[in-house]
């Protein structure tokens, strides 16, 4: 009813100024009501399943909880000091699992970028069937981490002997790369590189294609070799794209969970693959310590927030740069 009235009011354009202000306030209320109608479905779902749970995670992180997830006793910041080893107990397993996560991303990120760059350079070759090859190089974006893990579990399995030659080469005393503490994390990282290859490739290719062709043209006229073109044109102009890719892959590798759960399934050989997200899963799912796991997830949020803010700053720079 109210809405209908205001529509009528709108049409009276020539109103005295005093009334006009009232109308515009009325109009504003109307616009707000209308907008609310449109954005409330999305907003309600986001509040219910993102914002409230997030705040509840923070709340839970200050309490000891029972197995049903109810708060039992206020615990102040004890969980945080425990995770970061500020309580002086000398138990550093959570700091170590953060370090394992960092190792993991130090393996995944450079490998991913080198492979992506190589594929993207190949995919800029000027031949007829290049679209066919591009589709193949992109293919891994359609393959889920779970499917890839099931396949790679067999690649690393002693029965297929597909990776036996690496074990022989390194003289390892093990049946599978996944069962040896010095190779397990690398094995998971290599598999992760394969699953993200398609995405990294497509981002890098887009970056190369955005470089103006006439720069290469004039470089060739000046007698630059292919290598010089790559070294002094492609690489510097691609740096923003590669930096962007680096941060994205770092964030993704900090969140990697599926491959650890399928390929390893527990702490792994000598905790060598116990990454932080998996430690959260263990506290949450296997030990039902909801308060403690929440504290860990808040720590993860802070780490990712730091990485994301670097990413946004970088994106800003990239926009100014071009």
């Amino acid at each position: 009813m109210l809405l209908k009235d205001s529509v009528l009011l709108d049409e009276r354009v020539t109103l005295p100024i005093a009334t006009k202000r009232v109308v515009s306030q009325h109009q504003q209320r109307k616009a707000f009501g209308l907008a609310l109608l449109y954005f409330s479905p999305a907003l309600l779902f986001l509040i219910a399943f993102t914002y409230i749970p997030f705040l509840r995670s923070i709340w839970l992180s200050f309490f000891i909880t029972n197995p049903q997830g109810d708060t039992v006793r206020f615990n102040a910041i004890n969980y945080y000091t425990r995770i970061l080893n500020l309580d002086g107990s000398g138990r550093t397993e959570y700091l170590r699992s953060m370090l394992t996560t960092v190792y993991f991303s130090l393996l995944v990120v450079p490998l991913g970028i080198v492979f992506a760059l190589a594929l993207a350079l190949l995919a800029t070759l000027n031949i007829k069937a290049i679209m066919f090859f591009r589709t193949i190089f992109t293919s891994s974006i359609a393959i889920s981490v779970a499917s890839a893990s099931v396949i790679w579990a067999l690649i690393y399995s002693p029965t297929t002997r597909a990776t036996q030659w690496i074990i022989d080469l390194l003289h390892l005393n093990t049946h599978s790369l996944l069962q040896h503490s010095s190779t397990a994390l690398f094995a998971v990282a290599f598999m992760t590189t394969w699953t993200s290859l398609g995405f990294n490739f497509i981002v890098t290719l887009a970056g190369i294609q955005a470089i103006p062709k006439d720069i290469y043209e004039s470089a060739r006229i000046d007698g630059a070799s292919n290598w010089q073109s790559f070294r002094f044109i492609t690489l510097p102009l691609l740096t923003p794209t590669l930096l962007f890719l680096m941060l994205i892959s770092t964030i993704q590798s900090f969140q990697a969970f599926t491959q650890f759960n399928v390929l390893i399934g527990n702490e792994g050989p000598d905790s060598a693959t116990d990454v932080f997200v998996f430690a959260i899963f263990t506290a949450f799912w296997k030990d039902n310590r909801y308060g403690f796991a929440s504290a860990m997830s808040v720590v993860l949020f802070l780490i990712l927030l730091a990485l994301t803010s670097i990413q946004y700053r970088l994106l800003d720079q990239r926009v100014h740069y071009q």
Partner: protein
Amino acid sequence: MSLNLGSLIRTSLLYAALSIVALLVLLPLLFALSLSVQGPTLSPTLLPDFSKLDWSSFQDVFREEPNLTRWIVNSFVVSLAVTLGQLITSALAAYALANIDFPGKPFFFFVFLGSLMIPWESTIIPNYLTITRLGWKDSYQGLIIPFMASGFGVFLLRQHFKAIPRDLYEAAVLDGCSSTRYLWSILVPLSRPALATLAVYTFLNTWNQYYWPLLIIDSPEWRTTQIGITAFRSSEVTIYNLQMASTIIVMLPTLILLVLGQRQLVSGLTAGALKG
């Protein structure tokens, strides 16, 4: 003549190099295919015996794991429902943010954008407790409802709606077009590429979801494909051909999606990467 020969050699070398690299990239998939056609052997080899390829695993796996069909149905129901839900809620919210001037707009925009900063891992424990308390474990609503909105979808569609000239809106309103009708019969048809991007991206992500269904699904018939194949793997550890056959079967829908909607998928993924 010699120039022609030179360029011919050069081209064939390029093709050879590209083919070798393509083969390396596809190696894990070819490995899976190779194992799936070797029959129920306990000692599979890397290359199958091409004289007697055994494709029966792709039928047998449905008999061996009667729930496989159900898992595929589950994944389709959940992925389609989430995709449709996100398209609707995102389009409505994006419309309000792009076309209506209302007080407090920057604040609400910030609320939608801010949700991208909260990683999934920091909400999963309370969400799990809520869904358990609602009795939604082992149900479609438990798999669907938490994903009915996404800040990314709202943001993506808002950008596209804003790119459509405002004159169009004013002209439509002058002609007596209501705002709902404007959204439905003008904005949505004009934004089909953006909607397709969001749809393909959301479908792919939901189909490939692992962590959430792992938590809230207990009974075998409610599993989605991703949970199904990993569970099947641990129960049938030594039946390699069926393991690989089931994995290839559940990969097919997304591989087909890649071939049909590569452009949308790529633009969705690159835009989606902007979220943390």
